[in-house]
C-alpha cells in the first residue's frame, strides 16, 4: 500500500490534481517520536562527572524565565558527543577533574558543593586565564553548551523563538516600511 507521501508524489507526477492542491496536502515528515521522558543514562562520563558537568552547563546558560542548559539536558548531549569523539571526551574529563581539583583546594569541597557565588568565581578564574589549558577547557565547555542548548527545543524554540523549517505557502520577507531601501 502506498504511504500518504507516495500517494501525493504520484499524484504530482501524474498531474491529475492541480499542483496547488497537492501542495496544500504536502505533509512534513512526522516527528519520529515526541522526546520521551525516559531516564537518560550517561554513556561516557561517570555519575560525579555528570553532576559537575550539569552544574557547569547550567552556570553558562542558567534557567531564567525560560529553561536553562541543564533543563534542556545539555550535559547528556555533551556526554553523547564525548562518546562519539573520545579525544573531546578525554579533554572534557581532564577539565572537569581540574575544576574539581581547584574547588577542593580551599576546604576540600567538590565543585557542586560550593555556593553559586564560589562556583561563578571559579569558572570566571578558568575563563580569564590567558592561553592556559584551563581557559581552553572553559572555552570548550562553553562552546559545547552553546551548540547543545541552541539545538534543543528549549533553547532554540522556547528561548530564541525560532519557529521555522515548516511549510509556508508564501514567504512575505520584510514587511516593515521603515526597513525599505
Amino acid at each position, binding site marked *: 500500500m502506498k504511504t500518504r507521501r507516495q500517494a501525493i508524489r504520484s499524484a504530482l507526477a501524474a498531474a491529475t490534481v492541480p499542483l496547488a492542491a497537492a501542495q496544500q496536502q504536502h505533509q512534513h515528515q512526522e516527528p519520529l517520536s515526541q522526546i520521551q521522558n525516559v531516564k537518560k543514562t550517561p554513556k561516557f562520563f561517570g555519575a560525579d562527572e555528570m553532576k559537575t558537568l550539569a552544574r557547569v552547563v547550567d552556570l553558562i546558560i542558567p534557567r531564567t524565565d525560560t529553561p536553562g542548559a541543564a533543563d534542556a539536558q545539555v550535559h547528556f548531549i555533551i556526554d553523547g558527543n564525548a562518546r562519539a569523539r573520545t579525544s573531546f571526551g578525554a579533554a572534557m574529563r581532564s577539565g572537569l577533574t581540574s575544576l574539581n581539583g581547584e574547588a577542593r583546594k580551599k576546604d576540600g569541597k567538590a565543585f557542586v558543593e560550593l555556593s553559586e557565588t564560589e562556583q561563578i568565581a571559579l569558572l570566571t578564574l578558568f575563563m580569564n586565564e590567558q592561553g592556559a589549558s584551563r581557559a581552553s577547557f572553559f572555552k570548550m565547555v562553553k562552546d559545547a553548551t*552553546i551548540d547543545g542548548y541552541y539545538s534543543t527545543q528549549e*533553547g*532554540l524554540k522556547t528561548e530564541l523563538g525560532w519557529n521555522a523549517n*515548516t511549510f509556508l505557502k508564501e514567504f512575505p520577507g520584510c514587511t516593515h516600511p521603515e526597513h525599505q531601501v
Partner: protein
Amino acid sequence: MYFQKSQQKHDVVIIGSGAAGGMAAWNLTKLGVNVTVLDAGQKFDRTKFWSHVKPWEWRDRLERGLRPPQMVLDPKEQPYETPAGQTFDLTRVWGRGGKTNIWGRVSLRYSDVDFEGPAKDGWEIPWPLRYADVSPYYDKVEQLIGVCGGTDDQDSLPGSKYMLPAASPRCGERLMQKAAKGIGISIVSGRRAVLTKEHNGRAPCHYCGACGKGCDVAAFFNSSDYLLEPALKSGKLNVVDNAVVARVLVDEKGKASGVQYFDRNTKQEHTIQAKVVVMAASCIDSTRILLNSKSARYPNGIANSNDVIGRYLTEQTRFHMYGFLPELRGAKAQNDDGIGGEHIYMPRFNHRDGKKRDYLRGFGSQFWGSGAVAEASFAKSLPGFGADFKKGVKNRYPALVALHPYGEVLPRRDNRVTVEGTPKDRYGMPIARIEFKLSDNERKMVEEMYDTAESILHAAKAEILPYKRGELALAGSAIHEHGTVRMGDDPKRSAVNSFGQAHEVKNLYVLDGAIFPTATEKNPTLTILALAWRGSDQLAEEFRKGNL
C-alpha cells in the same frame, strides 16, 4: 580478477551525472543520440530526505541509529592527499545528480567582465568565449530549470527576461541593502535556481529552508529529476549505477575507445566501448581519471601531451563576517527561512569605480545565514557566561547578518592535481594529490574584501562579531574547483576547445567545471549547464557528420 568485457559499442558514454553530465545526457538524447551514463553512486530517495527534521529530532534519530541519506562522499572511501601544511577541503557527491542534490543554487550569469578579464589583464590564457556566445544558452537553461531573481542587472551581472519572481528580502537583508546604497555599493536581488512559483509542472518552493538536506519536492534544480529522468523517458538513455571509472581507454589511432570502471559494491572490473567519451565527473575526479589514463601514446595521461591537464587549479577564496543590526536587536524572531540562503547579492564593482587596484580580478559577496537561523553559534564569540550572556544571545539572535565575500583566485601553473607516486585507491588506481596555495594577488584582494564587508556593516551601524582579519575559509570549501582541463583557442596552452572537445583527442569531451580557465568571483553551476548544453550541441552535430 574476473574481467567482464562488453562487446557492444556505445555511441556516447558520459562519466558523471551532475550538472554537466546530466545536461549532456538530456540534450544528446533529445538530439537523437544514444547515451550511457556511468555514475559512481545511485539515485537518492527523495522521500527519505530529512528535510523537515527539527534539530532536536535530528539528534534523537541519530541516537536511535537512524541516518539521513549519505550524499557527501566519505574521503575514507576515495581518499586524496595534500602536501604537508596544505589543506584542500574537497566535497564530492557520488550518486545520480551529484552535487546538484545539495548545491547552493546561486545562479549568476558570467558577464564580459568575467569572460574578457584574462584577455584584458594578460594573466594566463583568455577565455575562448564571450557573453554573446553563452547568453542564448543561459536563456535556455534558465527557462528549463527555473531561476528566480530581480531585474536589477549590472554590467558585472547580466540578467534575463526569464526570471521567476524574486524572493522578498528579509529585514536584515533590506537594511544592509539600504546601508550599502548609502556608501555607493549596490546590493541587488539574488538569483537562485529555486522555483518561487510552479514551473514546467514542478512544485514550487514551500520555504522550509532545508535545501542543504536535499529538497523533498525537488523545488530546486537537481540533475537527477530535471535531466536524467526526462532523458530516461526518451528510451535513449541507459544509466549504470555504482560505476567508478578508473581510466579512459585508447585505440591504436589514439582515439578514445571506451572506459574501464569498477563496480563500487562488488569491485568487479568492467570495460565499456564507446564512440565518444564525455568526462563530467567534477573537476578533480575528471582530472584524476584523465591523468590516470596513461598509454604508450599518452604517457602523461590522455590528451595531455602539452602538460596542461592537472595544472592551473583555481577556485575562490572566502571568509565570513557577522554583525548585529541595531533595528532588529531584541525583536521577535521571524520565520526567516525563505528560499534557503540569502535573497540578495553584491555583484563585483571594483572594475568600474576608476580606482586603480594593486591586484587583478575581483570579488562579489553573498549573505547566507542572515536572520533567525536554526542555531546560534555566533554566541561562541560573545564574552562571558550566565544570565546576562543568555540575554545577550537572545537579544542579538534576530539581528544577525552575515557577509561572505568570494574573491577570484588567479590560475597558477603550480596549483595542480597530480597522480604521480600517490597511494592507490581500493581499485588499485593512484589517488589525486592536490597542491594549492594562494598568492599575493589574493592576499591583496582579501584586504579590500575585508574593507568592503566592514564598511557595509559600519554603514548599517552594526555591532561586528569579533573576527581575525586575514583568516580565510579553508581552500576548496567554496566547492567551485576549476581550471585543470582548461579551454582555449591555443592547443599548446589549453586542453580543450570552447565546446569541451579535447584538442588532441577529437572524440573525448570534458564538460564539467574543470574546463573553465578562470574561476571568476561567481558560482559556476549555471555556466556549467550552459556550456554543457553548448558543447553537447556541437558534439551531436560532429557525431552526426561522422567527424568523431
